[in-house]
């Protein structure tokens, strides 16, 4: 169960996709919801577990418990998505819910309003592609 959705993919021998990757579907994680409760959850938004919220509520689902554990350190929404192998839209809903409940704190980039930095993101993407 550690590693969230990626649970079953430890087997290097499997030619096809591991069972859990195949049969677990992301829409069940949020009950079909795709709209985050928080507006400004961008890929680069940083998330950290709130102090005193270290004992996760029993109402949390498996993924949210995994998120709570990951967020003992500061991580970005994009990183949570990647580590838990969840679609970015699902991660945003989960983190948004947790932020509303005060379980995690969000740090948004203080600079320009969100979405105006498309050019910057493109430059970053370009740079990343050049590295690989």
């Amino acid at each position, binding site marked *: 169960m550690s590693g969230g959705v990626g649970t079953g993919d430890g087997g290097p021998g499997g030619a096809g996709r591991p069972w859990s990757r195949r049969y*677990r579907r*992301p829409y069940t994680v949020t009950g079909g919801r795709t709209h985050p409760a928080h507006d400004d959850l961008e890929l680069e938004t940083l998330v950290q577990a709130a102090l005193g919220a270290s004992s996760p509520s*029993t109402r949390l689902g498996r993924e949210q418990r995994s998120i709570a554990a990951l967020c003992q350190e500061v991580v970005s929404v994009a990183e949570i998505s990647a580590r838990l192998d969840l679609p970015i839209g699902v991660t945003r809903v989960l983190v948004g819910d947790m932020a509303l409940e005060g379980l995690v704190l969000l740090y948004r980039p203080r600079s320009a309003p969100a979405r105006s930095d498309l050019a910057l993101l493109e430059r970053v993407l370009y740079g990343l592609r050049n590295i690989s």
Partner: protein
Amino acid sequence: VIERLQRGEVVDPDEEAPLQVGSRDEIGQVARAFNEVHRVATRVATEQAALRKSIGDLFHNLARRSQGLVDRQLELIDELERGEADPNRLEELFRIDHLATRMRRNAENLVVLSGTEQLRRWSEPVPLADVIEAAVAEVEEYARVRVTAMGELTLSGQAASDVAHLLAEVVENATSFSPPSTVVEVVGSPVASGYVLEIEDRGLGMSDAELIEANKRLATPSATDIAVSRMMGFHVVGRLAARHGIGVQLRHSWYGGVTALVLLPDRLLSQATEQAAFAPPWPANGAAAREPFPLAEVTGPALATGVYLPLRRHAAQPSDRAGGGDAAEAGEPVE
């Protein structure tokens, strides 16, 4: 002989003459005539068995093909969902995903009904929680299903798909026969011989007679025929349960609906080797605080047969509770 043929065994009609005829008098003639009738009946049954087998093979091949296609479709949907940042488009993708997932379940159920062989098997054990989540994903009204944390058990990879489809049928039955405003709860608890999942709905329930009938159908999966297609759900459950020695029983729920008990036997289960670092303790207000599980009833002598007949709870559950027209409707299994 006919039963053996229906089970798919090979029978030589000439070797199966029931009466040894020695005399030439009237009794001998009657015996010979009887043997002739028997031979004809056996031949007809043999032909029918061959026909059934070829229809089964046809099922199987068609279902296999659509299963493969839907699998590929789901892989593509996975990729699209992964990168989708727009909530509205993601919502649409989820709908497509859900439909494709249910199509795969149908295709794989058809493979089960064709009776030929098992679904593709995985060797790695699968977390039980994943299997239950997969089952919920295959249900039309998945958003109404509430699963209480399942602990760290894993299920044999060989049985994972079958158990998921079995549970999907049971949960689907629970959601179809309870009001849309109610939840269906899935709770698990360890018992002496394995792990029991309770699937409880808050519908109108079934009468005692309907429960007995339904449990009988679950216990004796018959050969596939037209009648089966109308109650495919129960039939699939019965087949899959028999294949893995899983116990399935329907009972009255104290909430007024039906509780389905699914007993996963020990040999399908193992403890997860890697302990999740951040798994919370078992929720104190979850399974533990519920109505205590009637352990003695489950570990009784009926255990070996795999499927138990319902235990009626007259005291707490008046049998006329589910009476009337609604009961008849609730008695119909899914699909």
